[in-house]
Structures are given as C-alpha cells and as structure tokens.
C-alpha cells in the first residue's frame, strides 16, 4: 500500500469514531446511530469486496447473506424471547457472540452450494444466477408467516454482548466498529497472502492462473464463502442496530446497494467499503432530507465515478493501487 493510501485509510478510520464521539458529547444520539449504520454497511461491503474487489466476482446476490445474518439474529432472539425451542431441540439465544457465530456459519453453509453452482458460470450469467438464488431466499422469507412474513420481525430488546451495554448507542457503535476493524485487518492480511495473490490473479487472468497449476474455481469458491460469511455477520449486526429484520434485507435492492458501496468507495481497496458506506449514508441523510428522489443524485455520482474516477473515492484520495 502506498503511503498516500495508508494515510487516507487511517484518516477514514479515525474520522468515523471521532464523529460518533462528537455526537455522544453533543448528545446527538441520532448521529451515533448514523455512524453505526455506516460501520455496519461498511462491514457488509468488506465482505463483498473479497469476492467483487479481489476476485472480480460481481455477486448480485449478497443480500442473501446480509438477510440470512439478519434473520439468524431475529429468529434466535424471537425464540429466546418467547422461550420456544427451535428445531432439533435447540434453544433461541440473545447472546450476540452466539448469534454472530450462527450467522457466519449459516452464511458459509449456504454460500457453499450457491458458489458451487454459480461459479461454474461467469460474467453476466454469474450475476443472474447469484441474483436468482438471493430472490429464492427472499420469497421464502416473505412466505414464512411464523417469522413475520412480509411484515418482518421485531427484536424487542437489543441482543447482549458480554461486557458491553449494547442498549447504549455509543457502546453498540464501539462494538460494531471493533468488528469492522477486525474484518478490515482480515481483509488486509488476506489480500497480502498466498490466497490473496491467487485470488487477484483469478480476477486478472484466470487462464494464466490455471496454466500455473492453480484451479481458479476452487480459489473463487473459497473467496465466495469467506465473502458471504463477513456479509452475514454484518447482517446480524444490522438487525440488532434496527431491532428489526424484514425481507427487504434479502431483496435485490440490497444486493445492488452493496455493489454500489464497493464501487463508490473503490473496489479491491482496503478502505473502499468504508469510504463508500460513509458517502452513501451521507447522501441518504443529507439529500434524503431535501428530496425523496435522492437516489437520482446518487445515480449521477455513480455515473461520475464510473466514467471519471474508476478507482472510486479511495482512487481519488490515494491514486491507483500498488500491487508490490
């Protein structure tokens, strides 16, 4: 990473908790929630950035994992609240570490067959197949009355994390931000590792990678599963942030939003998802306050990024990526 990118990354990482802290001191709880929203969306996009940014896999179905993570939190909490056991005699839980673990493992397990099927295709077919899988799960959630169906599912009390008062907005922000930092550290290590080298090679030239003796398919499959797991964790946190889960978390709009976050911030760049999420939420908040049609202006920004600044916000701040 160039010194300029390092500086931009650290600045972005410092800015978000600084903003949350300022909001705490000023008593502006709403802005703490906004900062938390940025952190959660950034975490989801870090997940997608593994597949899309490093591997060049344009998954249009990552809402599936975001939503499954959310439903893992919602369903476990609801069952715990109602003291009803889940299937196979398992009890619900309101423990966030347990919920996170379930969300991550569930997403990994679901991503494996989806990846096995969809990674046999590429380009526009890959986009369509991942979309189709996500929509299947979306319609399943809509027609599942036990957990709210179309109306969604409320989590009455935010789930608990040992040593953290999750009901306090700032404490919850710190928790989410710490998980985002952990995911970013993982992404950074991953990108620099042997696996990361093979994954980036599969994006640049899969024919060359195969000619070296590394099967692009297996590298992509592992990346897809890891990517889903991180996005699933974000989904569980998103549910807890809003204390609400609905099928909209699973819809293709959400998949598109995640792609927008990654492209807006700078795909394949460490801080890209954070930059993208910050910009997106700022737009949503500032322009959304002025007009209901704020997404029109977001579209204009996205056009500008695609035509003028391929590297996204990080590309503007830190120049082109360096691969050592």
């Amino acid at each position: 990473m160039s010194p300029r990118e390092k500086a931009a990354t650290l600045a972005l990482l410092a800015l978000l908790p600084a903003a949350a802290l300022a909001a705490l001191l000023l008593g502006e709880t709403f802005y703490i929630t906004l900062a938390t929203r940025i952190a959660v969306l950034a975490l989801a996009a870090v997940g997608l950035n593994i597949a899309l940014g490093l591997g060049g896999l344009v998954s249009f179905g990552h809402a599936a994992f975001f939503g499954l993570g959310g439903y893992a939190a919602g369903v476990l909490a609801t069952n715990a609240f109602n003291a009803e056991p889940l299937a196979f005699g398992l009890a619900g839980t309101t423990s966030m570490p347990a919920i996170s673990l379930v969300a991550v493992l569930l997403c990994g397990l679901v991503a494996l067959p989806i990846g096995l099927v969809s990674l046999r295709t590429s380009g526009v077919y890959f986009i369509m197949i991942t979309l189709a899988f996500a929509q299947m799960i979306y319609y399943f959630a809509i027609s599942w009355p036990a957990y709210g169906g179309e109306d969604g599912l409320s989590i009455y009390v935010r789930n608990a994390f040992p040593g953290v008062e999750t009901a306090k907005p700032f404490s919850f922000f710190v928790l989410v931000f710490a998980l985002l930092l952990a995911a970013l550290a993982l992404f950074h290590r991953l990108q620099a590792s042997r696996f990361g080298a093979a994954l980036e090679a599969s994006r640049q030239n899969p024919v060359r990678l195969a000619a070296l003796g590394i099967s692009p398919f297996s590298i992509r499959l592992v990346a897809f599963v890891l990517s889903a797991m991180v996005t699933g964790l974000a989904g569980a946190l998103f549910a807890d942030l809003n204390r609400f889960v609905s099928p909209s978390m699973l819809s293709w709009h959400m998949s598109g939003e995640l792609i927008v976050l990654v492209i807006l911030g700078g795909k394949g760049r460490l801080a890209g998802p954070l930059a993208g999420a910050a910009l997106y939420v700022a737009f949503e908040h500032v322009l959304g306050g002025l007009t209901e049609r704020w997404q029109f202006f977001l579209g204009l920004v996205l056009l500008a990024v695609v035509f003028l600044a391929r590297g996204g916000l990080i590309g503007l701040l830190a120049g082109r990526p360096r691969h050592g």
Partner: protein
Amino acid sequence: MAEPVLAVDRLEKAFGALKATNGVSLDLRPGEIHALIGPNGAGKSTLINQIAGALAPDAGTIRFLGRDVTALSTAARARLGLARTFQVSSLLPDFSALRNIMLAAQARQGSSLRFLRPVLSDRTLTEPAMAILARVGLTARADVPAAELSHGERRQLEIAVALAMQPKAFLLDEPMAGMGPEGSKTLTAFLDGLRQEAPILLVEHDMDAVFALADRVSVLVYGQVIASGSVAEIRSDPEVRRAYLGDAA
C-alpha cells in the same frame, strides 16, 4: 530410446467440418527440442491447446510422464509439470514482474490456501523469483507491472514464469513472436541451454531459430503431420518444401 516425456497419440479435433487436428501423433523425448512448424491455420495452436488442456480433443490420447492426462484439467496438467507459454503474452497485468514469477513459485510449492502470511516478505517465494528474473535479464524491471513492460520484456517474462514452475516439459507457443532479430538471437541461445532442464515442444515461425535449435522437426499442414525428422531431413523433404518452406530453405 528413452521413454518419451510427452506422447500424443492419434489426436483428433474438429470445428464443424474443419478438422483442425486430424490424427496427430508425436512425442517429446528427454533432453530434446522438438519443433512444430507449419503454415498459418495448420492447427498448431489448436494442438498446443489440447496438449495443455485448454481444449478437449474429440479422440485420441495424450500421455505425460507415462500417465494418461487426456481427461485432466489445465491446472492438473500444470501441477504434473507441464509448463506452457502463450502465443500472445498472457500475464497478470496488475502484478509486477516479480509477483508474476512469485505466483508460479507459489503454485509449484502447492498450497494457495494460506490466508495470513504476507507473500512479499516470504523468502521462499521472493528468492527463487529474483534468481529467475536475473536469469532472463529482467532484474531491473522487477517492480514494474506486467502491463507496463515492453513487448519483448513480456515475452521474456512469459518464459521466466514457465521456468519458475520447474516443469518436466515446456510447451512454447511462438516464443519469438514479434521480437526483433537481436531479441530472437538472445532467446535462441537461451532456449538452447534450456533443453537440459526439460525438453521443449516448440511452435515457431522463425525458421532460423527452428533450424538452429531443433533436434527434431514435425511439419503440420491442414491438421496432419506430413513429415517428421531431423532438420536436414525436413529441409530436403520435397513435400515439405512444396507445402511450406518454399524458397526459405
């Protein structure tokens, strides 16, 4: 006669009515350079692609190191020790010259499912890669992205990547393509020494290079091997002269 490293037996491949490979049999023995020549459209690249595993033949078998590899994937054949270069350089454009070679070294060592240790400080990758860069004379360009290398440098990097795989056989698809006379001469001398490491199946249009290097030459015309033999035999074969060499020989 030594057991061939690579043996192609009655290979067939048709695209519609066109028989691009029409019953081709040839082999590659230890320590030799076997040149494959023929006019444009003779099916040389189609043949190389089938041997490398990029294209599935309709019939026939490919044996490598005594093993039937006809049904194996490109990656599996590469892992067995078959290294190919491409007619049009096929590199990792964003990666530096050094990282292109490091990935080949990584592939040879086996595991790419290592997630945490950074490659750039991994001396089991950087040291052999630097040594190979020095061998092909690209040391000064180690940190330059492959996309920014000159055409000649990319051709050299293609060879360097193949070297880093420490293969049991090389498939070189027109390594001289687009190189100036000086570059061709240097590369000819380099390939001359390379046959000691592993035998080379060489597809090449540069007849000076072919005649200087080849232990054996096979001539492919319309998907068929019309002649196979030593350089002297091929140069004097009337049918080859008529079909391909013309006045050049």
